[in-house]
């Protein structure tokens, strides 16, 4: 059965920065599918190679700041868009795309399917354990949307779900 890793990125004490962590945590709590694992992390780089092997699908939830973006908006990005998210590249590490390519070349079983969700945030610089109001308000909707798009609620497999649609 296809195995999925649901990875939330962020810093739990930097206000909106925690939104990726909170979303995957909530998804994990309501999920019934055993083939989906949930992980929270402050970065996604070369460390991924230590635990990514064996998954067929990777879903990343991270925060993003775009010019003119509305806090709480949800974007679905491709691997090529990674440089614009907040935790997927770092001045003293390799970025996720390079890490995944490296893993492939080294013979590690890297997920063939990668989905990246980025949530527009307002304030990721203030020490605080709750998000700003607009982001806070958007969280339940974001959880539903990701769960639905990625079919994370159902106990049926992805193939079964596709048949139901």
């Amino acid at each position: 059965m296809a195995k999925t890793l649901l990875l939330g990125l962020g810093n739990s004490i930097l206000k909106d920065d925690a939104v990726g962590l909170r979303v995957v945590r909530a998804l994990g709590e309501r999920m019934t599918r055993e083939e989906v694992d949930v992980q929270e992390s402050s970065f996604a780089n070369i460390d991924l190679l230590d635990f990514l092997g064996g998954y067929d699908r990777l879903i990343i939830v991270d925060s993003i700041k775009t010019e003119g973006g509305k806090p709480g908006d949800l974007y679905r990005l491709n691997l090529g868009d990674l440089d614009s998210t907040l935790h997927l590249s770092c001045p003293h590490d390799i970025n996720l795309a390079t890490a995944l390519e490296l893993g492939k070349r080294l013979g590690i079983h890297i997920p063939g399917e990668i989905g990246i969700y980025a949530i527009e945030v307002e304030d990721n610089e203030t020490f605080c354990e709750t998000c700003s109001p607009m982001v806070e308000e958007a969280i339940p909707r974001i959880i539903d949307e990701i769960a639905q798009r990625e079919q994370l609620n159902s106990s049926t497999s992805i193939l079964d779900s596709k048949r139901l649609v």
Partner: protein
Amino acid sequence: MHSHILHFFALAAPDFVLGPDANPAERNILGLINKVGLDIGKEVIKNRAFAQETQKILAGRATHLVWSLPGGVSKGITEEERKKILEMAKVNLEFAKFGLKLFEEVVLKNQAYVDLILSDAYQTVTNYMGLVDRNNKVNFYDGMIRVVDTEAKEIAKFKPADYLQHIKEHVEPWSYLKFPFLKKIGWKGFVEGPTSGIYRAAPLARLNVADGMATPLAQEAYEKYFDTLGGKPVHSTLATHWARLVELIYAAERQLELVQDIEITDPKVRVIPNKVPDEGVGVVEAPRGTLYHHYKTDEKGMVTRVNLIVGTTNNNAPICMSIRKAARGLIKAGTIVTEGLLNRIEMAFRAYDPCLSCATHSLPGQMPLQVTIRDSRGKIVKKISRD
């Protein structure tokens, strides 16, 4: 160890193995593997993972350790864990030796690279700071802070708790990060040379402040380093890569020594504090420099004030100066600014392995770079951005 391994092989080595002017699409760890072989790539990943695993066994997590408690740590290691670490430590030492050999083969046997390291564009003449043991050998966890001047003469040696008597922080309106300097000399601006109060920390500095390394192979490597680079102090920013590999050898040897220490499995790992603390300063040598943690507490032991000077912060002013010097040295009137030339400037920045998102806890964890090229009258000729 995992930080030094990653920095050298993933971020520094591509500049030398592929060349500073190589296509950026190839000038990375993937290009490195193409050039030196897949097996070396596997060794890099394996040894970095071993170093991470050792920290996980010791402290619960590989990054952001969760075992520190007032009076000690939350757990010791079992004999079974010790044996596991021992096996990994042996492999790590062999790999550290390989790293140094690779540097010698690729960099030192290529006179153009030696000349590049020693070229004026990459020299930043500063004071240096680092932790040393009682014999003035490099130490990462314990000892006294030693400061040497631009000629490697000791100008201060102090207990970590006295750091505020020796360090002050300058503020600039254009940076959210402070600029530490030596209090006794004072802030003289972004200037290098013997009158400057600016100091550097991290591998280059640690080797400059110490009288040697506390382990045999690292000592050998230390001697070769200074012999080749013209004696102490070494002011070349690019030599930081070599210094990093000397430290990797030391760390691997020390790890192997500690894991064979009879007391390493002693379950007495904590002394329960019986007094309410009021103030404390802790210092370690982090991969990117001397790391100061200073806490004050109230009568209940609750923290009321915190001051941190993290590794990269020590090097904030020198980073600015090294970039400026590289740019001035490499871009002259009429110079065509190529991608390779920009990379050569970035190499002055990259050698510090700066952790700017960690140093400030704000702004995106990515590194947008912008280069503004001006003519001799200050008029902007070109702007280049990498977001």
